[in-house]
């Protein structure tokens, strides 16, 4: 069973489509990168998988169910700048939030929950920061904490919205290594970025979008000069090494 299947899907708000013609199929352990300019509909597509943005047309299946029915089963790593850095919460508490759904409303956290939290922090290399306040960490470290929170929930499908924005090189490397490990363990990954280098390095599949889906396939098939130019509307420069660079801000 694929982790994610979209067939002729349009997504948007208030019956106004933001993104149309999405056809995707993602198997467990595969890494899908969404590439497109700002405003292309990357976040909306991710929200639709989470059941938070309506599917206006077509057929969407997430972990074998409709997005609304699968809600809470897919992991999600939000953009760090949407969070309040002043919030009085420790790193450990943030990661424990990933376990809240399985802990439920009443029961106190068990040893298994605490172990899952410690393991997730260990995996992202921040075990020594567990007692620190979330807001005192650097942007890259915060992003790794949010990744640890998603991992602690042990999802079979994990979505990351621009995980490399405002992230230092060390943290970016750490995140990429963790994502590879997760995929090797069978987790399906969807992440959005406008960094084509990361896309080429990490992707099994690339989905090129801008208002509609322009291409989907391996990085070699999709990140070609011609397809990038059509999706980005000419804001591209062809480099002599055969790669294409974006000049869109």
């Amino acid at each position, binding site marked *: 069973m694929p982790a994610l299947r979209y067939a002729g899907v349009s997504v948007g708000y208030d019956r106004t489509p933001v993104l149309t013609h999405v056809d995707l199929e993602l198997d467990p352990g595969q890494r899908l990168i969404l590439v497109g300019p700002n405003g292309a509909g990357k976040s909306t597509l991710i929200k639709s998988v989470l059941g*938070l943005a309506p599917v206006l047309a077509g057929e969407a299946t997430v972990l074998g169910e409709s997005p609304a029915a699968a809600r809470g089963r897919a992991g999600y790593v939000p953009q760090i700048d*949407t969070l309040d850095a002043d*919030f*009085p919460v*420790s790193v450990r508490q943030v990661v424990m939030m*990933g376990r809240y*759904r399985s802990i439920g*409303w009443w029961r106190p956290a068990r040893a298994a929950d605490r172990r899952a939290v410690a393991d997730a922090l260990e995996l992202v290399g921040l075990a020594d920061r567990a007692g620190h306040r979330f807001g005192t960490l650097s942007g890259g470290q915060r992003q790794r904490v949010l990744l640890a929170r998603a991992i602690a929930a042990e999802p079979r499908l994990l979505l990351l919205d621009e995980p490399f924005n405002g992230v230092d090189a060390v943290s970016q490397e750490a995140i990429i290594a963790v994502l590879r490990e997760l995929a090797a363990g069978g987790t399906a990954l969807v992440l959005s970025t406008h960094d084509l280098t990361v896309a080429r390095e990490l992707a099994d599949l690339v989905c090129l979008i801008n208002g509609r889906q322009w291409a989907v396939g391996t990085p070699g098939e999709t990140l070609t000069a011609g397809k990038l130019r059509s999706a980005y509307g000419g804001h591209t420069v062809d480099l002599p090494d055969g790669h294409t660079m974006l000049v869109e801000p």
Partner: protein
Amino acid sequence: MIEPFTLPFMARALAEIVLLALICGPVSVFVFARRLSFTSDALTHTVFPGVVIGFMAGQLFAGALVAAIVTAVALTLLTAGGRVSDDAATAVLLTAMFSIGVVLVSRRSSYTSDLTSFLFGRLLTVTPRQIAETAVLAVVVLIALAIGARALLFRTFDPAGAQAAGYRVFWLDLWLNLIVALVVVAAVRAVGTILVVALLIIPAAAARMVSDRLAVMVVTGTVLVVAAGYTGLLASWTASLHYGVALTSASAVVLVLVAVYLVLIPVRILRTGPARRT
């Protein structure tokens, strides 16, 4: 320092404050973290007509309870989805409800004295029955908070993440607003509609000055309210007995709380370095 509290009415006033402290400490931490200061202020005002109608019908408690629940629902609907004008809408709703209360009171012959007691409470005339009612409400509020605490924490810290994890944000917001409304109902007769907001905002705001930890903030906030209750009651007692100054006790309690907040500002600056601009 203990002697004034051997008088039954002073002891009852202190008991009432201690009960309120038990719920205001934890609830104010959520009000603070969710930045619900304005919503809490709105709730205190919108409960007012309920208090007036309840008073006229001889069922003040029931009136306040109904008004609190109705406005908690209305405010949640009004602010759902962060619609553009919710700030203005809240302001208008709260003054409108308040006006209804004033119109109703103004039809009575004892207009001004009634209005004053509704607005500023009568801490020194708290009855054993009122204390019992407050205790029941306190238990309800604490249970409701214990059930919702995890989900509320998640939703407060990261709304998008909580939604993605399957939490229904609307219902969580309603849950918290109802909890705040119940606190207002519990406190309204003792400290009045207007000063309740101090008990909902200041404990956590002051506790945040000395700690980053939620659990520590809850405890600190509770202790602060108890301490302010004791000090404020003692001050108003001393002022009226020895100096002949009529210092209303609820105002004294709130002023002590405010003073603590102001005193703690330098502590925060020492802990975190000088203020940075946003």
